[in-house]
């Protein structure tokens, strides 16, 4: 009986009340805010992803250049066989020096004379205070010529 009276009352009323409208507006605003925040985060993630791809591509490119230098290096066994890794490092520094403005750093390690260790470090695009590394080890092809 009460429900029928209310339904009748609603039939009698015309449209939503102010409270309903405000509630609806609040809901829409919340949804829109979360959407916009997600959009902003998504755009930032895309930008970070792009930066990461650029950095990693540059590092891969540098590694390939160094491998090319190793392959094309003259097999000067007299100069290189005492420490092939040092020999290759010198060639790399001469022919492919680290460029100013790179978003990554490159260091060498020749503790093992038969392996040139190259460490690339870069700040993570997602959190610039934290670092990421790529380590490449190259056995100089000259070593195969050494007696």
């Amino acid at each position, binding site marked *: 009986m009460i429900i029928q009276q209310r339904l009748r009352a609603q039939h009698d009323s015309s*449209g939503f009340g102010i409270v309903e409208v405000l509630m609806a507006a609040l809901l829409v605003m919340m949804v829109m805010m979360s*959407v916009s925040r997600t959009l902003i985060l998504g755009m930032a993630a895309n930008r970070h992803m792009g930066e990461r791809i650029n950095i990693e591509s540059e590092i891969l490119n540098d590694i390939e250049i160094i491998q090319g230098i190793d392959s094309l290096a003259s097999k000067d066994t007299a100069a290189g066989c005492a420490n092939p890794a040092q020999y290759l490092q010198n060639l790399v520094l001469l022919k492919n020096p680290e460029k100013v403005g790179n978003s990554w750093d490159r260091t060498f390690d020749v503790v093992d004379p038969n392996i040139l260790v190259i460490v690339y470090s870069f700040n993570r695009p997602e959190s610039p205070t934290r670092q990421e590394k790529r380590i490449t080890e190259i056995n100089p092809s000259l070593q195969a010529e050494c007696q």
Partner: protein
Amino acid sequence: MKFSITKRIRSVSLSQGQAKADEQGVALILAVLMSIILLGISTGLLAKQLMTRRNGASESYKQMAETAASNGLNRILAKLNNSNTDISYLWRLQQNDQQGLQWNYSNEQLRPMMEQPCTPLLLSQQTAAVLAGGDLSHNSNLRDDGSSEAVTMSYRLRSYGVSSNQATFQIEGIASRGNETPPAIASRSLLTRMLALKNVIPDADHWAALAASRMELGASTISGPGRTVLLLNKVDAGPSFVPTDSCSASTLGARVGATDTDLKAKIWPLLGVELPSTGIFDQEVAVDQFTPSGSSTIQRRIWNIDDNRPANSLIGCTAIVCSRGELESSYKSQDALYVSNGTITLPGSAICVDQQAKPCLLWIEKIKLSGIKKLLIASNQAVVLRMFRPLESIALVSPSSLCAANSGETTCRQEAERLAIVANGGDSPSSCAAATQKLSISGNALPAALVLMPQGTVNATTSASMRGLIWAHQICATAGLALTTTSADGGNVVDKAKTSWHWNEDLSLGITVTKGMRGTGLDMFRRW
């Protein structure tokens, strides 16, 4: 107070009549639909962002895994190609589930199956561990993303196979995350890499000075660099290298009947290796040929020289120096041209006419100098004497001699690389008494020469000496052969021969070291 668009609409409707019942509440439905759409969009964007982050991390791990595989290959190469800790024999062994994990075999198992059974087996546990795999992170976290879990990379040799001169590695590269042992695998990559193998002989002292499948060396000696290489059948002789002392100087010395201590210490057995082809002297040579009288065909000239020729042994020639065209049966005497006093001189101008810029190849049916005459081949070019038929021979009895000299000179040159004696006939005899293609020498009858007779015999009938190299199926020198391998100018015979005859870099006979050479194939990565 009521406020609504529907009120106005309804007001209009009321003024025009009663609103339809099924149109009531449309605004609410539209609002709900709009909310669902907005919720869907926001959820999609959120999912995309999460996927982007995840993809970024995943791509980094994959790159680390590929780098790890490549780094692992480089570490293994550095070990296998290291001359200081020579473990190059591993290049020729299998290390896979199908053909066996031969790198792990005991020395007794390995020796019979190796091409060089007396190679020092120097694989240490430390080196074996590096070959099997290991960490590549150099004690650092490769990805500091705020988590306490370290990101590391490592490699593992999955398989190694060798076929002929091609080696194939399969190496797993692994990117891991976590501090536990072992850490959780974030990504894996499988690298397949093929390399060319090359046999290298480090220096002249590792080359074969004497090489044969069968030897009776007696008091023979080698003065200068070089080894005595014993070529053995792998199936027959392999098991004899199981005992620990099978490579001792005394055991090997007994195999070749040697008594000289220095020579015994220089014996190097090879299993399943054959002598090089006589073709190593055939390249870039001119063949001695002519047009016999009465013939219109240019033919190879066949030489038959005997300073004590039995009567009626040849058709048409009883002289010391006889020759014929290869298609002729009758010989012509050449004494008037080439024999003078006690010396037979074949001048450079008479052999390989019009091709004197090249080494000259003479086909020899017989050379027999029984102590009466000296045979001098006086040419500024190197000369190859090649035996013509399987049962023919060159027999030199001191004080006769056969040697090369400069054109117009009568003094024997001491450069072994100037005179090569080769034969590829013969029947690989198993005793020194067997009739076969044979080079017999005594005293200093052959002062300097390179000798290559893969199926023939070199026989020192009495104590003999010469400068050069002797590679033959059989060397019979119980009377003693003093071989000198240094050159008169202070170099060595092997290096001179390699240079003079342009031997291919692939040619090797002696103690070889195997090297893996890059640049012949591409890396193939497979992810899973």
